[in-house]
């Protein structure tokens, strides 16, 4: 049964040089731009609280200034900075960690209005219980799990990051997270304790094949209608896991060999747990991280990864050397589903027919870090 479709959808776009809101009409064919907001700020994530349809949180910093979170209670018209952004507790250790960037923002369970989670660089997990005004450490992660795994998640030049905070819609205390690097971890007690969930996932950069953690998930998703179904786009392929199982299966093996199954984003169809899109990139030799062969394409599966179909109608046929970051590919809830992504070259592409055809709806933006589709109230 089709999900109720909002009259209009907006695209919330975070870039290396600010944020932009593209407001669509009822046809999703005409888009008007609002912005830039916070021109010059690095905006890693810009997210709507779908529980109220109007609160936006933005993870931002500038080249000079440290990280913070901005809030809007009027769908992006005005912004106020968080009174206490995510930060680690003060420590006497001269190497004590400090938040470099807020990387990921996620509203918590529908039963917990005003509760949000944030993931940071370096890896840290934070919770707000007042709609993003103040943030506290999730001590079960920052002070509990992290010290025991830090030898596998530190020492990355651009910083390790915590992303893909997935809340089980059937249990507010059941949370999955991804650490890049570090792996996938699961908590059944609202973050008080954590268990690794990486069996079956390859990690060709680790000395042991059977490591419990230290893997590199790029994106982790959980299906809203079947929360036992997980997918991840990993540094080492595309995987699926059906709980209560604990062994991931590399479904990316079915991708064409010349394309491979490396990439950053992964998007699920909100009404079909077997339907997923990925956007492959070149992960060979020196890891160019561009469209394989300069020929961009999305790939879709309709059977949970048994087979994949190339979807490239509308894209450049050659010499297009961009790719799509992990937060920069999303879906709306319309029927047929709309898909949207932003590129490292500053273009926004849309498909209104579930990936069958694509058109460029914006160009010349800065390097795009995140795109999310939002039904703003």
């Amino acid at each position: 049964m089709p999900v109720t479709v909002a009259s209009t959808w907006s695209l919330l776009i975070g870039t290396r040089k600010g944020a932009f809101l593209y407001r669509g009409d009822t046809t999703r064919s005409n888009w008007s731009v609002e912005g830039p907001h916070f021109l010059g700020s690095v905006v890693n994530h810009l997210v709507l609280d779908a529980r109220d349809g109007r609160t936006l949180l933005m993870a931002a910093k500038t080249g000079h200034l440290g990280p913070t979170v901005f809030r809007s209670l009027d769908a992006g018209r005005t912004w106020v900075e968080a009174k206490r952004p995510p930060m680690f507790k003060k420590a006497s250790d001269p190497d004590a960690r400090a938040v470099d960037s807020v990387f990921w923002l996620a509203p918590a369970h529908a039963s917990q209005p005003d509760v949000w989670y944030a993931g940071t660089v370096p890896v840290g997990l934070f919770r707000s219980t007042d709609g993003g005004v103040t943030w506290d450490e999730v001590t079960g992660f920052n002070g509990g799990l992290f010290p025991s795994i830090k030898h596998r998640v530190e020492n990355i030049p651009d910083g390790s990051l915590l992303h893909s905070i997935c809340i089980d819609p059937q249990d507010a205390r059941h949370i999955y997270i991804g650490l890049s690097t570090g792996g996938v971890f699961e908590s059944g007690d609202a973050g008080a304790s954590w268990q690794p969930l990486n069996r079956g996932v390859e990690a060709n950069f680790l000395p042991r094949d059977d490591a419990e953690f230290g893997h590199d998930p790029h994106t982790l998703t959980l299906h809203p209608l079947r929360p036992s179904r997980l997918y991840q786009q990993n540094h080492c392929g595309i995987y699926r896991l059906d709980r209560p199982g604990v062994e991931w299966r590399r479904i990316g093996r079915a991708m064409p060999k010349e394309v491979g199954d490396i990439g950053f984003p992964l998007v699920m169809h909100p009404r079909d747990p077997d339907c997923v899109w990925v956007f492959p990139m070149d992960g060979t030799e020196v890891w160019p991280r561009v469209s394989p062969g300069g020929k961009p394409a999305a790939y879709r599966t309709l059977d949970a990864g048994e087979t994949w179909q190339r979807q490239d109608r509308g894209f450049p046929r050659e010499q297009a050397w961009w790719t799509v970051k992990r937060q920069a590919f999303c879906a709306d809830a319309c029927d047929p589903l709309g898909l949207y992504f932003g590129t490292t070259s500053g273009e926004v592409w849309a498909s209104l027919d579930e990936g069958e055809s694509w058109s460029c709806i914006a160009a010349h933006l800065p390097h795009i870090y995140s795109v999310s589709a939002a039904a703003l109230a």
Partner: protein
Amino acid sequence: MRVLLPSPLFSYTSGQREVEAHGACVADVLHALDARYPGLRHRIVDEQDRIRPHIRFFVNGEAVTTLGRALAEGDELIIVAALSGG
């Protein structure tokens, strides 16, 4: 004392480049500034009291690397934002 601020902080001071603040050391002045302009301090000093990488402090023209640097009335504190990259 006189405190000169870099343009990335103007959004906190409503565009003022020069403000007055008082304290016995740089850390005290930063706390005084943060009380008047909430959020300013965290953007230039991290939660471990380390000066952020692209921020510099000068007292009477002399570079300062620790927030405990003592100050006297009449000193001038200049906060500089020095960016690299494109």
